[in-house]
């Protein structure tokens, strides 16, 4: 691995979240400076900031993109107890020339009484639905019935999880075999309620979400969780960031016809557990094909996890800071390209050494 590029994000305070759009050509960053910035990737691979605006009156914790089928839409959530939906409007031609675009607020969701800790769009096959969770323990699911009018959102469901919520994750599977499913994580330090991960499932008959499962083995505060893309499996995979990294396998048990009205029962197994971070794990996230999991912890590292064909998980990479704070008001990266270049060839050198006396003239330098 190597650092290919560094982008000066220019936020005036800490960045809390970065989110790629569906195609990986745009990026949004949000910060404690209360603003969101949108970046576009040019054909040459450079990132340009095409919009930057104040979104909330408190730190912005998360920012996320809607599926491009709904247009260019962002959602953000903040310490100021609100979540907001933003849409990009096609600007004047001179804006385009300057490489700027405009985002306008379509709606503000003010139902929460406390900091809104996470905001996620539901899988696109469910329509345009936005979900928030707050420190007050409530998960709220909103829907925009008319996708052409993003100023109209109705609160469809309120799920009271009784514990301060820190994160939510939708099961991305669009298979008809599974009803919509959402996992909610809590970082409540209260010990009386055992499981800090709850799974809710939508019931077609009652038209409501009901709790299907609580992961009782997760008793420490949960900071993040993520369902893996489904890949046609009959079971679900959920990664949890708590005092370690845990990967759970949730197997739906066959429903007996008599109790088919209740939520699915799951058999829960733990697929892997890593305590390499040796501390709190704050984020977990799957790559697109669910072959790699990345986690970020208190040790200041990002670790990559991979399963081989025997389903044995191993750490395949670590990222960490090099310890030196960047000094300089210009903010110009110092010797970044050098660091990047040399490490790229380091692993290739492993095989270079033995090549003495073989077509030396044709070897590339380095």
């Amino acid at each position: 691995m190597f650092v290919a590029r560094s982008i000066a994000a220019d936020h005036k305070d800490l960045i809390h979240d970065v989110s790629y759009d569906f195609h990986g050509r745009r990026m949004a960053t949000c910060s404690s400076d209360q603003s969101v910035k949108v970046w576009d990737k040019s054909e040459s691979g450079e990132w340009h900031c095409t919009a930057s605006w104040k979104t909330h009156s408190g730190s912005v914790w998360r920012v996320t993109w809607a599926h491009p089928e709904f247009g260019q839409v962002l959602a953000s959530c903040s310490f100021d107890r609100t979540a907001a939906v933003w849409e990009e409007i096609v600007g004047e031609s001179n804006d385009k020339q300057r490489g700027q675009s405009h985002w306008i607020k379509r709606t503000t969701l003010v139902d929460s009484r406390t900091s809104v800790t996470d905001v996620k769009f539901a899988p696109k096959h469910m329509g345009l639905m936005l979900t928030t969770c707050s420190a007050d323990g409530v998960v709220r699911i909103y829907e925009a019935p008319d996708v052409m009018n993003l100023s109209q959102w109705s609160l469809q469901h309120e799920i009271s999880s009784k514990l301060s919520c820190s994160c939510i994750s939708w099961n991305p599977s669009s298979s008809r075999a599974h009803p919509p499913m959402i996992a909610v994580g809590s970082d409540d330090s209260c010990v009386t309620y055992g499981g800090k991960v709850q799974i809710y499932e939508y019931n077609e008959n009652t038209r409501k979400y009901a709790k299907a499962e609580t992961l009782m083995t997760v008793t420490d505060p949960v900071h993040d969780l993520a369902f893996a893309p489904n890949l046609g499996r009959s079971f679900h995979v959920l990664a949890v960031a708590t005092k370690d990294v845990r990967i759970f396998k949730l197997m739906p048990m066959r429903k007996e016809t008599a109790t088919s009205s209740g939520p699915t029962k799951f058999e829960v197994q733990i697929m892997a557990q890593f305590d390499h971070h040796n501390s709190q794990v704050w984020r977990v996230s799957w790559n697109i094909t669910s072959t790699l999991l990345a986690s970020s912890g208190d040790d200041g590292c990002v670790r990559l996890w991979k399963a081989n064909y025997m389903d044995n998980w191993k750490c395949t990479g670590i990222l960490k800071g090099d310890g030196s704070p960047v000094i300089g008001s210009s903010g110009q990266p110092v010797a970044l390209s050098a660091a990047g270049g040399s490490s790229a060839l380091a692993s290739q050198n492993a095989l270079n050494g033995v090549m003495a006396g073989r077509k030396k003239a044709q070897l590339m330098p380095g």
Partner: protein
Amino acid sequence: MAELIPGIDSSQRHLGFVWGPGDLLAYETQYKPTGAQHAAQSCPFVHVVRKDEDIYSPILRKLFNESHHIFVGLQNMKDDVPISTRDTALATQYGNQVSILLAVELIWNLCEVLFIEAAPAGSLLLHLLDWVRLHKADVDEKAQEVLQSECPAEHQAYWDVTVCYILQGRIDEARQILLKQASQQPAARVTFKLMDSLLMKMPIYNPGGTQTLTEFDVKWRRWHQECDRCLQDNSFASHPHLELICKILVGDEDTLLEQREHLSTWYHFLVTRLLYCHPTVKPTELHYYAQASMDMFLDGRSAPEPLDSILLAAFEFDIHQVIKDCSIALNNWWFVAHLTDLLDHCKLLQSHNLHFGSNLREFLLLEYASGLFTHHSLWQLAVDYFDHCPEFGRVYLELQIERVPLDTERKALKVLRICEQRQMAEQVRSICKIMAKKALRNNRLGSALSWSIRAKDAAFATLISERFLQDYCTHGTFSDLDLIDNLGSAMLLSDRLTFLGKYREFHKLYAEKQFAEAARLLLSLMTAKIAPRSFWMTLLTDALPLLEQKQVIFSADQTYELMHCLEELTTGKVAPETELSMQEDNIEATKIELLRLALARNLALAIVKEGTLEA
């Protein structure tokens, strides 16, 4: 294993990240339990971290394309056709490549020899000799230099070349070059003749011949003893070079080890040793000699490198280990994936009792193809690989093809074609919807409409049709006439779209002066309820010019129907849907009056016309 991100102090800060297409973004942040707010200094950078990937190397592009071609051919090959990789263009592509490819070539050729040719004792050594010679081409360069010099025998590299020939078992060439020396030293003619005869008599196994391996072995031992006797007799004592050669012929370990520089690698040492000690080596004995040779050659001077363990694993016929070590050592899954696929096709994975044989193949191919997918043009190669992964190929393809950026119409169409060919209906719909939405945002209604039609998205088609109609009402003209005129059966996707198509047809008929047809169509739009109520006023207004023509176009019956429609409209308007100003109200009223007048006049004329008998 750790990659350092510059400018971030891990003891003070956390490292945030997000997955991207083919990369990972890392940034400095501070995680806190919910609710806590803070202000802090920040490192303002977001870093793009990528795996060391060769997919961006232009040199390897050709390789990927070639191997893709061969891969597809292999999948389509019948089972009983013997697979020989010597015909593949792969080896020839390498040419002037970087050393990592040389390593790959070395491993690949060895795998060919050991696993695919699966040579038995006797031929095995011959193949291994070929293998070493293939990878030690510098001898020929030196030899050229020597032979082309004025006096080859006195060239400083003369004996180097000669010894190298011997080490590689190139006996004929050694004899040739020794002749040059012999002719320079007539006094030592006898000695040189002796050497020449030894070399000439050296038995070389002929796999196609009638001699059995045992017979060969006997002959070889006899020859070996003869060489040894020459040494014992000190026959070459006066010529240190010739004595050296004789020691090599006898397979003296120490002598061979002294030739480290000429051998340069332990596996060359191994093959030379086998040539002169045990030419009838069996495949099963190979690993013992390999390990020993490596230990002797490296002799603690240097640690074994990844390449060494891969070769050792190959000599041990441990395919599984070869694949595993290659996966670790090489940056890209290319080699491993293709090698595994080839071995799987040769049914070699199964025969080595890997019960996960074909799963392993699929696993590696999926890895490799997924890696290709992030490249802006190589992703198309990946599609074929996914096609040939029976278990997970399709779902991997579905997931990843959606993410291909649809920068241009052309690219979108390319992606679509791939999805349509594989009946990936949902992906087709989604891509068309995304393109339609993008077009609509940029006010390209025609493009948006055609994408909606392709997506079979009735709701969106309705929406766009409405926009067209609104545009018409505002500007009096249609944009994108070509599209609307040629809708064909696509018109039926949504009612509004049908109306749009038919309405445009009406305009065409009118322009072509086919008034009767136009009139009929116009009427049917209202009576068949194809037109939305909100548009009836516009339609009736469109009827005015037809009503005011000199000739009677609308028949009496038709006129009655028109009047009926007008009445329906006016009586239906109990309360105005929108707040109309006084002025707009007046305009409405005037229009209605005009219509009533025109309709009444037309009715009169029509009745008269129909009442009169035409001759």
